[in-house]
Each structure stands twice: as structure tokens, then as C-alpha cells.
């Protein structure tokens, strides 16, 4: 017995699979938000919607964690990291695509393969170096080691390879220097890949866990992932406030996704997994 493609039974199976997968993806998030809105006596309820929603848990979470400060730290860290990765990636790709020079191949391999070195392998020397440079608990310490990323350079190399060479050639004929060509000719035509790289790098940096875990000691300097981990260790079974804190930690990214979901999906798909 075979089910014909296009038959009603087949279409139900197809939609059924996708609906199941969608529910699997969003239900845990919905449960987080629903729990965060339940009053204390209702936390263990299994009702899909909170019967009498309250913001009480948010108040409790805000009292326990300096949330505005932490969210600001995280935003600054993620925005600076994304900008730095886009800039260093663009510059490196410019050199590798438009010049032929001795050592180019070595440089490209050093950058590309850096993505193979697990962070746990280099964490001790990195921690020692960051300590010597006085980078503990600092924004600079969070951003600088991540100011360049292999995937950013590779994405920009791909973008520049397909860039029309005639335009660059024409600008050069007009006597423009290489920096002027980059700023005035290439960058304005590279807005889409730069934006997609920026979004990708921002989300990755926002969700970064390991390096801040090593670097951050004080709550005032903390980022949201570490704040959440701290809160979970301290008040692990205060489910209402914990879910409120987790919701606040996710809201900026979820809001970004709500607006830019198509671009976000495309840029993740284009760069593979980060």
C-alpha cells in the first residue's frame, strides 16, 4: 500500500510532522513565559495559560539581579563584538581577495583553522593573559579576544569574490587609493552581507557563555548569561522568578528575531553552525 504524493493523507502527514516540530520548538519557550506570569500559588499549575497573570516574578527577579545594568553590559558587548568582527573580517577578506602576496595562503589558513581550536584547550593561557592585561571584569576583556572570527573572514571572502571586479578596476583607473576604494566603492555595495554578518555575530556574542564565565567575577560587570547562571545556582527552585529572569534575558534576541526572522535564518544557513 502506498500513499500517493499529493493525496490528502500524505498532506496531513507532512503538515503533522511540521506542526509537531514547531510545537517542540516553541512550547518550552511558551512554558517559560507562562510560568513567569503565574502568581506564586499557581506556579505548579499545568494549565496552558496563567489563570491570573501577574508581573510579581519580574519584580522579584529585578530585585535579585541588577537586570538593566546586566542587559546594558550584554548589549554593549554584543554590539561591539559584532562591529569588530565585521570590520576585521572585511579588512582581512579585502587583503586576501584583491592582492596576491607571499604568505597570503598561510595567513588564510591560520585564520580559517582557528575555528578548530576548542576554547577549553586554550582557556588557561587566555585566562592568564587576560589577568595580566587587567582585563578581568571589563568590557574590553569580553570583546577584544573575540574581535576577529574565522567565520566572519570566510563570509566576507565569499562576498568579495563575487564582487564585480570591473567596478574596482574603474575606481583604480580614476586614481583612487585602496582604502578609498574600500570605503567608497566596496562597502556601499556590500551592505547586505555586512548586515547579515552583523546580525549573526550579535546573536552569537549575546549568547556567549564560556569566556564571560571565566572573565567575570562581579555582578556589576556581568552579562546576562552569567547573571542567569548565578540566579539559577542561588534560587534554583524559585521557578517563577527564574523563568522571569530567563524571559528577560531572551527578550532582546526574540524581539530582534520577530523583526528580522527571514534575514536571521538566511544568515545562519549561509554560514553553517557557529
Amino acid at each position: 500500500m502506498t500513499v500517493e504524493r499529493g493525496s490528502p493523507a500524505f498532506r496531513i502527514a507532512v503538515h503533522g510532522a511540521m506542526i509537531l516540530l514547531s510545537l517542540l520548538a516553541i512550547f518550552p519557550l511558551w512554558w517559560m513565559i507562562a510560568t513567569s506570569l503565574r502568581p506564586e500559588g499557581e506556579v505548579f499549575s499545568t494549565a496552558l495559560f496563567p489563570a491570573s497573570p501577574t508581573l510579581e516574578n519580574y519584580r522579584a527577579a529585578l530585585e535579585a539581579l541588577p537586570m538593566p545594568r546586566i542587559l546594558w553590559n550584554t548589549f554593549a558587548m554584543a554590539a561591539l563584538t559584532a562591529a569588530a568582527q565585521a570590520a576585521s573580517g572585511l579588512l582581512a577578506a579585502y587583503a586576501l581577495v584583491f592582492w596576491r602576496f607571499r604568505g597570503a595562503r598561510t595567513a588564510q589558513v591560520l585564520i580559517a583553522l582557528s575555528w578548530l581550536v576548542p576554547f577549553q584547550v586554550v582557556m588557561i593561557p587566555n585566562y592568564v593573559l587576560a589577568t595580566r592585561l587587567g582585563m578581568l571584569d571589563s568590557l574590553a576583556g569580553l570583546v577584544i579576544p573575540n574581535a576577529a572570527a574565522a567565520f566572519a573572514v570566510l563570509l566576507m571572502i565569499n562576498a568579495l569574490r563575487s564582487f564585480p571586479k570591473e567596478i574596482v578596476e574603474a575606481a583604480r583607473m580614476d586614481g583612487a587609493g585602496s582604502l578609498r576604494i574600500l570605503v567608497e566603492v566596496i562597502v556601499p555595495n556590500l551592505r547586505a552581507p555586512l548586515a547579515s554578518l552583523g546580525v549573526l555575530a550579535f546573536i552569537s556574542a549575546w549568547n556567549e557563555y564560556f569566556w564571560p564565565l571565566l572573565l567575570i567575577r562581579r555582578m556589576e560587570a556581568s552579562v546576562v548569561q552569567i547573571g542567569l547562571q548565578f540566579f539559577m545556582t542561588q534560587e534554583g527552585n524559585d521557578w517563577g522568578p527564574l523563568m522571569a529572569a530567563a524571559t528577560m534575558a531572551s527578550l532582546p534576541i526574540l524581539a530582534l528575531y520577530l523583526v528580522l526572522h527571514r534575514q536571521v535564518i538566511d544568515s545562519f544557513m549561509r554560514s553553517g553552525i557557529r
Partner: protein
Amino acid sequence: MTEAAIPAARRSVVRLPLLGVKLSEPWLYLAPALLIVVVWTWAPLVGAFGLSFQQWNMLPHSEPRWVGLDNYANLVTLPDMGRAVSNTLLYILGLFPLSVIAPLAIAILTQDLSGPLRNLYRTLVFLPMIVAPIVAAVLWRWLLNEDHGLVNAGLSALGFARIGFLSDPDVALWTLVWITGWKLIGFSTLLLSAANAAIPASYIEAARMDGASRWRIVRDIRLPLLSPTILLLSMMTVLFGAQWSFVYINALTGGGPLRSTTNVFFLMWEYGFKTMSAGWSAAAGVLTFVVFGLAALGCLRLMRKYAVHDS
């Protein structure tokens, strides 16, 4: 490979007025990215290699002491290490059904899906990928809580025994694998769907005209043409699966219960920052890097072979 598009700029040289140093232009553009990866990835890798032959408790006033191959000799005989290595393999193998096999099945099943719902599915299914790992840890810890979690409430309502998802040594590792996979399954599905949609309809049509069964079309046409994407996802799973699980181990189980959820990446972290034996951590790191580096080279070679096959 790369064509020199600006031949005249090839030998151009920039003088840095303050330093009096001459630098050729491409190196100047390359400098920021190269400097960062050398200072924060390659130099530390060399540093870790050196540290793996020393004993050091990481205290500022203590000096590292040279111990030769002792760290390696100790590691190989420690039961901790054996457990961590076998668990690392379990993490990777356990992730395959979620990161490759189920997505492949769903992508092939849903290939003709179109219309407005398709975009809605895409948007929803992808969502876990952008959720922060620690948020994923927190919300699954709640859903799977032994006493009050929704999953156990459902199990006991159906008459089953409650499961200690994070406290039962036989289950905890698979719970962490599930959380790791939950973030990936939708993304992998979208990636495979995109590759599947790129297969020319004429190939399928021609095979159907020849009377090929649906299964034969999948086996002889779709799977070979999807193999580069399947390989990419498999490579990611092998190389990074155990690393992705680190957050959940550290946040949810601390390697327990009874060391059932530890893996090599968590072991390095414990040696380094819990028991302060930097040398052991570095030695474990060097061994891990060598093994995964060889795996990566193998994977890249395989991918190159199949990339040719694709065109």
C-alpha cells in the same frame, strides 16, 4: 585561485609615519584579524602545549615546575579520563539522530510543502537555534524537574513512574544530549530542506518516467545529491557536539550524578578551574586537540571528495 584584480597595487607600500615602519598594504588590512587569532588562539595553543609538560596550580606567586610526560602518563591511567572519553563518544553518537537523521527524514518527507504555512513553520522551527544555551538549560531544567516539572506531571498522569531526568545516572547524559539536540534539530532540517529543494525536478521526473519507486528515488537520487549537506552536518556534530554540551553539563549536572555526564571538555574545565591542576588540564587539552584535529582533517578530505561528486 584568487585572481589579482588590482595588479598595480600589488607592491604598494605604506609608511607608518609614527613608527617609521614600512608595511605592504595587504598586510596592513590583514593585521587586525591575524593579530587577534595569533594572540588569542595560536599563541595560547603553543602555551597550552608547553604547560602540558609542567605542574602548576595557577596561583600568581607559584612557579610552574617541569615534569616531562608525567601529566600524560597520569591522565592515561586515571579512570576519570576513560569515563570522560567514552562519554564524549556517547554525546556525539547520541546527537546524530537529532542533528542529522531526524532532520533528513523530515526534510525528505516535507519536500513539497509550499504556501503561507511553510514560512511560518520555518520561523518557528528555527527558533531554538537563537535561544541562549543557558536559557535552554534553565527552561528544560524546569520542564524536566523531578517533582513539579510538566513532563513528569504528564508521565504520572498517564500512570508511569516519574523519571529523574537529571538525577538518574542512567538518564542524565541522554537528557543533556536531548537539550543540545533540541537547539539543532530545526536548523538542520531547514538546511537539508534547502539542499533538497535545490535538486532539479527534472532528475526526479526522469526517474519516475523510468518507473523508479519512491524509495529508489530517495536512495539513488536524493541521498547522493544531499550527501554534501549530510556530511557537513555530520562533521559539525562530530567536531562540536561534545563542546556544545559543555554549557549543560556545567549548568545542570556538574558532571554528575556519579560522573555519568562528564566529558573531556568538562574534565579540562574541572582540572583547570576547580582542582587547579593546570598541567593536567593542558595535557588533556593537547590530546583532545590532536584527536579532533585529525578527525577534522579526515572530514574535510571526505567533503572534498563528495563536493566533486556533487558537480
